[in-house]
């Protein structure tokens, strides 16, 4: 389950029109959320509150071997968060947890930027004037008094700066690090420069969205697929250790059923590690993923499976577009047309109007016939495009608008011989998550499942107002 502050940070990114899916860091986010989901380690209770429209706070208590916890305060100057953020009673479960990321192609997004709703003092302009919004977060852990600080600042319409720090005042403690990340997304390219005080780590990440226009494939008239390629390069200035990897992500939909699927391929040339994943949303209630790891040098391999099953609450509730943060917003059919389709439709509409117009009388028979043929020619294609688009959008809306009560997540790996189980759900206004990890060990009596001693069994309860 997402922490409340992560939920606020997501809402901040949505309101400032910043898509985290364009970052190389999140290129394998779907398979990561389905395979490497975090399991509560102990009993954890979180209560969150919105003290003003711009301030949020969270108290967390952990009951492990001893009681510890944290106190978090967040401030952001972005407007309109109250319309997006919801308490644990109203929030849709698919927004409160990490799940399949339905990635929209870059050409299919709205081109009019919205930098958050303007405040009372801002002068309304069109196109909207860029306002450098920011987010400040401070988290104090106790009893250790370790401070975690974060600052996110939108410097320009295309750039974002993120500074994260960990600080400890305990004498002799080396837990003092900072990380600086500068991201720039423009013209389908996302560049990210990272600098960290931990061993002088420098990094550069790059992601390029290859498909930039809704070109027509042979097998599908309506193209909603996206292809992204990226790479990352790291160098530790302290030990001069290099690191790099390169990845590819392809997201598309089944033309007949509208179900989304994602394929990724990652290659680390230094370690010879190859990883490929395939994730598919098989129905509105289930998602499956598989990952295959292979090392070219040691020829070691690993196969992992993950799945999640959503239990619907029974009734179907139509969520408003503004409230969807995690998934893709249920954008109405007409608003989601991309530029080319709009222009195609415009041609058809204009043609129809022209045919019915009185001025048609002025045209010659030849011109009338030409216009009629043009309309007829485009009609079947447009109908086919509309059909495919509506199948894909219906499937997306079916998931986004559904009210779920709980989700089961399972993940297993052949090499580690483990089974991770996680249940997340809503109960009387609380968000609950419970899970454990089973290890299958071989002894004299055969293979016996035991609970992983490092993770045990944990329960997490969250409440937010």
């Amino acid at each position, binding site marked *: 389950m997402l922490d409340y502050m992560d939920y606020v940070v997501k809402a901040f990114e949505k309101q400032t029109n910043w898509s985290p899916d364009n970052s190389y860091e999140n290129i394998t986010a779907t398979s990561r959320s389905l395979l490497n989901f975090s399991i509560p380690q102990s009993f954890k209770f979180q209560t969150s509150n919105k003290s003003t429209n711009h301030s949020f706070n969270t108290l967390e208590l952990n009951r492990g071997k001893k009681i510890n916890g944290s106190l978090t*305060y967040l401030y952001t100057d972005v407007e309109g968060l109250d319309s997006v953020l919801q308490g644990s009673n109203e929030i849709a479960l698919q927004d409160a947890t990490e799940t399949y990321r339905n990635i929209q192609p870059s050409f299919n997004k709205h081109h009019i930027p919205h930098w958050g709703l303007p405040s009372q003092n801002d002068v309304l302009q069109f196109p909207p004037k860029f306002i450098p919004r920011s987010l400040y977060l401070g988290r104090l852990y106790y009893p250790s008094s370790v401070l975690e600080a974060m600052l996110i600042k939108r410097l320009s319409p295309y750039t974002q700066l993120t500074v994260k720090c960990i600080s400890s005042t305990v004498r002799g403690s080396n837990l003092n690090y900072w990380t600086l990340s500068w991201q720039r997304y423009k013209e389908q390219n996302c560049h990210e420069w990272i600098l960290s005080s931990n061993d002088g780590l420098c990094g550069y990440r790059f992601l390029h969205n290859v498909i930039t226009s809704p070109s027509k494939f042979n097998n599908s008239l309506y193209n909603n697929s996206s292809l992204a390629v990226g790479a990352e390069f790291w160098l530790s200035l302290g030990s001069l250790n290099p690191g790099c990897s390169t990845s590819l992500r392809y997201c598309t939909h089944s033309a007949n059923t509208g179900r989304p699927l994602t394929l990724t391929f990652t290659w680390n040339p230094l370690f010879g590690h190859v990883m490929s994943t395939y994730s598919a949303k098989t129905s509105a209630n289930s998602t499956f993923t598989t990952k295959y790891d292979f090392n070219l040098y040691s020829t070691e391999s690993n196969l992992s499976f993950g799945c999640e099953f959503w239990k619907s609450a029974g009734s179907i509730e139509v969520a408003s577009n503004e409230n969807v943060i995690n998934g893709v917003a249920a954008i109405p059919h007409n608003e989601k047309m991309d530029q080319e389709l709009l222009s195609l439709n415009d041609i058809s509409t204009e043609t129809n109007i022209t045919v019915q117009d009185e001025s048609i009388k002025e045209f010659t028979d030849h011109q009338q016939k030409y216009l009629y043929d043009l309309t007829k020619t485009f009609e079947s294609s447009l109908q086919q495009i509309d059909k495919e688009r509506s199948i894909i959008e219906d499937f997306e809306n079916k998931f986004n608008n559904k009210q779920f009560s709980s989700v089961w997540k399972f993940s297993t790996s052949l090499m580690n011989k483990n089974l991770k189980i996680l249940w997340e759900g809503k109960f009387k206004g609380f968000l609950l998550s419970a899970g454990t990890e089973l290890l299958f060990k071989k002894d004299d009596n055969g293979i016996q499942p035991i609970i992983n001693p490092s993770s045990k069994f944990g329960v997490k309860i969250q409440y937010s107002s």
Partner: protein
Amino acid sequence: MNFLPSFILSDESKERFTRIFNLTHTVAHYGWIPFVLYLGWSQSSNRPNLLNLLSPLPSV
């Protein structure tokens, strides 16, 4: 008296820098959360009281 090259700091200067760095670190460590709270307080029109701002418990 020993003359040191200009780029080598004397022990006193090193100690002074360390003290200033430690002081800045302590101020930033304990001042960050009050600073976040002050931003939230100053930017809201109704100016909530300190208890409302600090309390993570849902307000009745």
